[in-house]
């Protein structure tokens, strides 16, 4: 059964959730937040969207196959481990540069990797479960 009010609210709410997740991601190094929490919240937004519209619509919304999202998340996190190794430091050491006054470093890269990985993983889990349960019909 369709519910217009719910559909409108959820499709707006998805952007709020993802925006808040990104806010938590970038806030994460010094204050509560970080890649994992942000990823969970973004994925919760997609989950809500999926419950209302079905899993196919979620995959349309994301456009990329979740497995590539997961893979690229792992790759980004691995880069964050390997970049310090190329500079002769132990893996996962924080290497910082500054770009226009904003400090950028490998911990942020690692957090972004975790964020992407978590979003990909949870979306892939729940779309698969929904397909098995035939949630769309």
């Amino acid at each position, binding site marked *: 059964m369709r519910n217009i009010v719910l559909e409108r609210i959820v499709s707006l709410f998805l952007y709020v959730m993802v925006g808040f997740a990104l806010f938590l991601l970038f806030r994460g190094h010094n204050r509560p937040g970080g890649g994992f929490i942000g990823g969970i919240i973004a994925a919760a937004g997609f989950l809500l969207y999926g419950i209302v519209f079905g899993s196919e619509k979620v995959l349309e919304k994301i456009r990329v196959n979740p*497995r590539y999202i997961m893979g690229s998340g*792992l790759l980004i996190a691995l880069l964050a481990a390997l970049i310090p190794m190329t500079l002769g430091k*132990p*893996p*996962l050491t924080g290497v910082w540069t500054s770009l226009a006054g904003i400090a950028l470093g490998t911990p942020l890269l690692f957090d972004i990797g975790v964020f992407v990985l978590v979003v990909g993983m949870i979306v892939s889990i729940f779309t698969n479960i929904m397909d098995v349960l035939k949630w769309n019909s």
Partner: protein
Amino acid sequence: MIIALPVFLPLAFMIFAFLFRHFHGREYVALGAATLNLLVAVFLLVEVNTEGMVKMQMGDWPAPYGITLIADRLSALMVLVSAIVFMAAMAYSIQSVDTRRKSFGFYLFSFGILMGVNGSFLAGDIFNLYVWFEVMLMASFILMSHGGERNQLEGAIKYLILNLISSFFFVAGIGLLYGKMGTLNMADIAQKLMNFETMPPELNPAFILIFVGFAIKGALVPFFFWLPASYHTPPPVVTALFAGLLTKVGIYSLIRFYALFLHQNSQFWQPLILWIAGLSMVIGVITATSQFEFRKVLSFHIISQVGYVVMGLGLFTVGGLAGAIFFLAHNMISKTNAFLVAGYVHRQKGTLNLKILGDFYKEHPLWAIFFFISAFSLAGLPPLSGFIGKYLLIKAGIEAQQLGIAFTALFVGFFTLFSMVKIWMEVFWKKTPDKIPAPIIKIALLDDKPVNINWMKWSSGAMAIIIILAGVFATPIVEYCTLAAESLMQPSDYINFVLENN
């Protein structure tokens, strides 16, 4: 820098396998990555052998706070042997795993196991050890149920539940230990324990929980039931990989914990460990004699051979530990090769029931020789590597005045020989019986894609050659194991090495 590579190299391959799932030639990329891993392990061993120990602080945080990766002689040897086992399994899998399993991430999860195993060998931090255990277990759960045949699913449920419970024991123990000691770094805990005259009794629950966790993972006697119920269900190469790597990680961790913490309360732990070792040896070998399935016989033998290693640990003399380390390394290789031969038998005959099989020596003499070498190495016949391991262990047992356990080990050796001779007679020697008493059950579908090189034969043959070489040229290996045992007996070196900051 090289000590981080055994962890990151499998991860890099996993990402590759994840992103390019349908890449043709992934078998060869996997074999290449396994070879690279072997090279890394050799370099690590050489470096450790010259310097004694190698460490790395992840993220450059100093020792008790950051995560330590540390390789001493024991862990370097374990990384090397598991790299050999893994490479043989990868070469073997090119022919023996069907395309459906390959494209559903067989290589992805195999490398997950390798990453978890290498990480566990190198971890210098208890919680990190737990995380590597979980990496390894997650990958092994999936490989166990991979393919989704009914037997596999049943085996996977048993394997999964019991291994999860062992993880809970381990984590609960870590929680209690952290609550008492306030640190997770193994060297730091050991140093704080040394300050006590005797082991504080409130730590005993934590160590008993951790010990039970390791004992379930290592399939020691009261906790072994998951192993024979599940190891014969997945494809042969997966069983070979599991038999070579998984239980051994539990035993390795037990050795590490005993040398660092538990020996300070040895009047409690030593008799317990010796009893468990003796019971594991006897019960494993006796239950194996009553089995009539090739892989089940070998699975039960894992339990008895794990008992040998734990016996060397329980003696806790230099000779005993050296024997245990040698036996552990030998057992990883011989056991894997015995399972690889079982896989070939299954591929040719479609069954592993000993009563149905026969004539294998006449049809495939080379494979019969491979089995002969690995099986009689397990049974401990000279000049194969198993003889050296058993000789060292029994000699150490007699020198330590523990005659009971030494004679148990000797006695169990005869039973092992009996089981191996039984397999040899039933599978390789006797005539195939005319009347087939039981229906043939297909375990894994195999596709016979023509390949230029007979990878199965080469990998099993290489393992057989390694077994012979390790038996004939045992002197440098035994010397290395003795050095490893000496450094285990001197935990202060390990502690100082981890805690000193450059």
